[in-house]
């Protein structure tokens, strides 16, 4: 039987809707004549991409090129306006360290909450806290935590669910060197397993060493994709 790709994007387009120059108010809505209240901005255009199971892919591009949006489309968080997205596997999106955390809840309760949001109903709370070096802080509210501690906790939760697809958006740059090393090691372990990893980063060296393919995005379109060295030399020469 033919194996399905982990992620398949066919002619995917995505628009952001933003209120124009006006304030988003009822008064302005009523004062409109023939103009539209919302401005549509196409941020992803006709993207075709297929990522095989177990593949490690890096996404590069300048700020505003659509990398994070594409990652959210892959995660099913943003439904595409045109085209089709198909995903095969349990996804763990690591978009924004700390998203879904409640500052008043303890570390332990936040692990429980965040794991459930990621679809893990039986989280190994002690192990997750231990990996994040926060075993002694389990009952403290996370509003007392530093951003590095929150980053460790979020990374520990996201990778504890044994994802089949891990989508990482520039989170390894957060935190200190210890966190970076530790999280990189865990990510390498996942990469070495069957896990499909899509990594957005501006750290080109990291992408070159860790990814088997790099996709270069510019203004929401794929400019080039393929072997890391070739794509990176094209990107740097641009």
């Amino acid at each position: 039987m033919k194996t399905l790709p982990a992620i398949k994007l066919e002619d995917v387009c995505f628009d952001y809707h933003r209120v124009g120059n006006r304030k988003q108010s009822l008064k302005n809505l009523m004062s409109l004549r023939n103009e539209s209240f919302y401005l549509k901005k196409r941020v992803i255009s006709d993207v075709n991409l297929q990522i095989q199971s177990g593949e490690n892919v890096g996404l590069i591009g300048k700020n505003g090129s659509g990398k994070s949006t594409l990652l959210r489309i892959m995660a099913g968080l943003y439904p595409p306006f045109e085209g089709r997205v198909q995903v095969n596997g349990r996804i763990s999106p690591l978009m924004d360290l700390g998203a879904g955390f409640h500052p008043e809840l303890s570390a332990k309760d936040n692990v429980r909450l965040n794991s459930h949001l990621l679809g893990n109903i039986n989280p190994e709370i002690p192990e997750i806290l231990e990996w994040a070096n926060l075993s002694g802080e389990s009952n403290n509210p996370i509003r007392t935590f530093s951003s590095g501690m929150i980053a460790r906790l979020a990374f520990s939760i996201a990778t504890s669910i044994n994802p089949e697809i891990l989508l990482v958006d520039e989170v390894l740059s957060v935190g200190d060197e210890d966190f970076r090393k530790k999280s990189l090691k865990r990510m390498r372990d996942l990469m070495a397993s069957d896990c499909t990893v899509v990594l957005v980063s501006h750290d080109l060296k990291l992408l070159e060493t860790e990814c088997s393919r790099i996709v270069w995005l510019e203004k929401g379109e794929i400019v080039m994709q393929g072997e890391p060295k070739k794509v990176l030399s094209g990107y740097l020469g641009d």
Partner: protein
Amino acid sequence: MTNFTYDSSRPRRTFILKRPGGFILEYRLLRVLVLKDFATRYQRSIVGIWWALINPTLSAVVLFFVFHSTYSGKFSSGISFGPYILSGTLVLSFLATGIVTTTQNLVSSATIFTRLPARPEIFALSSAIVLTLNIFMGIIPLAVWNFIQGGTLSPFIFFVPVEALLGCIFITGLALICFVAVVRIGDVINVINIAATLATYLTPVFYPMNAISARAQLFLNLNPLTHFVNIFRKLTLNYGEARWYDWLYCSGSSVLVFIIGLYILNRTWKQTVTLL
């Protein structure tokens, strides 16, 4: 494997029943969210849950003080005016305030919906479930006031959870509609607040139905909150007649609002999520 776990060409569904274990996952998530909402809303305040009762109880006391001489004579069935008002303010603070609170909770959770696979429906439902505690705890001051006035609690009181469940469905549906609107136009939240205040006056909270004209009664009977209040008074104070019509109107309007809320959310989600 033959099927994709996510296919954007499939319509957005509220409950992921088709996925193995989907229902259990939604149920467990709901439980965790309810515990989270309870902990963050009540546990860390000094008087805890009693905060939620201060507003309806004080409102009832003030309304009692102001309207006592005007309306007390209108009750012929032995009901006391104080418990009558308190029962009304409890239901109103649960439903009207609940819709505003749940909408605000959804708006404040907006960043979660763009970063994690979380569904606003579950967040709205958990917020509404936590608010039912106001109703259950409110029975205590209601019973005390009623006892002081020489009354007893109704034998139908054990059916209050059924009404609370209907209230949850009603709040969830309306909050989802309001959320979709507020995300598009921020100041709709002010309109919702005004509507919630108007609903208070269009519900027989501090005046008996027989004190208003037949025409006004007809209008008030169109308001679902009137029927919620009627049922609650029957279930707690054994006052009036909560007929099958009241139950039917409450259930029908709750389910209808819930379905409309889900429909609007699902239909508009593609655009809504880009505005969060």
